[in-house]
């Protein structure tokens, strides 16, 4: 009997690749990433800032590259560099938007393009092609314990941060003028939220690379929107979708020997498409299925 269970576990481990330590760490990393990135992504989407998340993910590159330049492939240096880089670009774009004729979107675009170029230049001059690929596409199959620790810390910080800022953040999204009238928490909520975006991008960039870090935020949130209306279910659904699909993507890439980050992102994208077709608030159901209505 015992051998039967052990045999089953052994077969499962071999089929999913979880018999290997690197696959176990990758799976844990995906779940931790989903816990932090997906809820932040829901707020990004609802605030119409999804593309801003994308821009920020490129903006963290030069910071991480400078960290790499100074300290090599060192986790603390690249993490700190990425966080500082992201916050500097967000703040600089905010200053330009407030004080010049350039609006926030254009300001962010100019900064992130410059940042991206600078980051790629530093990595190309100071590092190797392998390093560049590692930073651009991540290394989810080579997560060390220290990176897992970082992912866990970021997930915890994000959940605590969202819980603490919940009320002012929701009010800032729904009615910013009202919040300004009754308290000064609007700015704290906005900037605290941006900081959460940056740390999640830095965490995701270690696993998925800077090019696709933002996918764990944007795609599950957008897919969840086709299934749920209310905010709380949206958050839970986005986390579950991100976790399940990234695990599936991990398994698929193990079976097919495809690169992991693109496989995960493509699966998330495919699920977004499916949700659009079959979700109750998706395009197909809203357009083509006759709706039964209530009496009152």
């Amino acid at each position: 009997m015992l051998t039967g269970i052990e045999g089953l576990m052994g077969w499962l481990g071999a089929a999913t690749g979880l018999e290997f330590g690197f696959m176990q760490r990758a799976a844990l990393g995906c779940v931790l990433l989903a816990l932090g990135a997906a809820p932040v992504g829901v707020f990004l989407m609802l605030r119409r800032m999804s593309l801003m998340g994308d821009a920020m993910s490129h903006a963290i590159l030069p910071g991480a590259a400078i960290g790499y330049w100074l300290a090599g492939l060192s986790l603390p240096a690249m993490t700190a560099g990425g966080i500082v880089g992201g916050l500097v670009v967000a703040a600089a774009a905010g200053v330009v938007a407030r004080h010049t004729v350039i609006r926030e979107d254009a300001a962010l675009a100019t900064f992130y393009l410059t940042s991206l170029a600078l980051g790629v230049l530093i990595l190309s001059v100071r590092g190797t092609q392998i390093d560049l690929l590692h930073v651009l596409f991540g290394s989810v199959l080579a997560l060390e314990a220290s990176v897992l620790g970082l992912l866990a810390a970021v997930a915890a910080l994000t959940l605590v941060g969202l819980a603490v800022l919940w009320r002012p953040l929701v009010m800032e999204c729904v009615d910013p003028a009202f919040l300004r009238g009754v308290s000064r928490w609007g700015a704290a909520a906005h900037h605290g939220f941006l900081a959460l975006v940056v740390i999640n991008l830095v965490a995701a960039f270690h696993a998925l690379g800077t090019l696709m870090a933002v996918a764990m935020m944007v795609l599950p949130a957008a897919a969840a929107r086709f299934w749920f209306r209310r905010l709380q279910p949206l958050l839970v659904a986005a986390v579950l979708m991100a976790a399940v699909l990234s695990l599936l993507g991990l398994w698929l890439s193990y079976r097919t020997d495809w690169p992991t980050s693109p496989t995960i992102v493509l699966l998330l994208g495919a699920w977004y498409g499916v949700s659009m077709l079959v979700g109750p608030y998706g395009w197909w159901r809203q357009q083509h299925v006759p709706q039964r209505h209530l009496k009152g």
Partner: protein
Amino acid sequence: MPDPADIELRDLTAGYERHPAVHHVSLRWRRGDLAAVVGPNGAGKSTLLKCVAGRLRPMRGRVTGVSPHQVAYLPQISEVDRSFPVTVAELVSMGLWHELGVWRRPTLVQRQRVQQAIEAVGLQGFERRTLDTLSGGQFQRALFARLMLQDAPVVLLDEPFTGVDTRTLEDLVCVLQRWHEAGRTVIAVLHDVALVRAVFPTTTLLARELVAHGPTQAVLTEANLLRARRLQEAFDEQAELCDVSEPNAAEESSHAHRH
């Protein structure tokens, strides 16, 4: 609720990009007043209200007797993102911010007050509906419920009845009168002169400058209304600097703005 004080405007001038929308207005609302502000489009009614609410800094003069945190203010164009997925009950509960702050959870009593406010504006049954499913009038009712929970001694309303049907209007006027009976100062910008005559004891007629202020019967005369229209039409785009120096405002720094 702390008792409201008399609200006084002293030589108030306010506007945008140096053009005054409100020009040298001095007046006084008694505490507990139910007051209307009327006038043609562009007469500075909203600007005046923003100054009283503390949302706009005057170019000259001042407002006394009210501080911004004592005010419940309903702007003319609300910035509410109605596509954000929160419910009517959650929107109305925002009016409890001054009691709950960032972290405290509403008590049973506070949740009952939210429910009572929703019922008072006739939105029972809509508590769990999201904002994008409400009509314009229902949404306005929800904003009124939020104002009720703010429990402020001074309530400022900027065209609160635009696009509202007769029944909603009657319900919301009832809310206004209950505020008045509770001793709050209520000041509302309105266009419907008949409604002002029927409901509001005090009226301010504005046409960038103060035309008349006092009991509604005395203010809303044909002569005053005609004068308001004339004043409003007579403004000059290429105006020069205004250099009024009044003896009672001599201590204040001289101001410079174009008309």
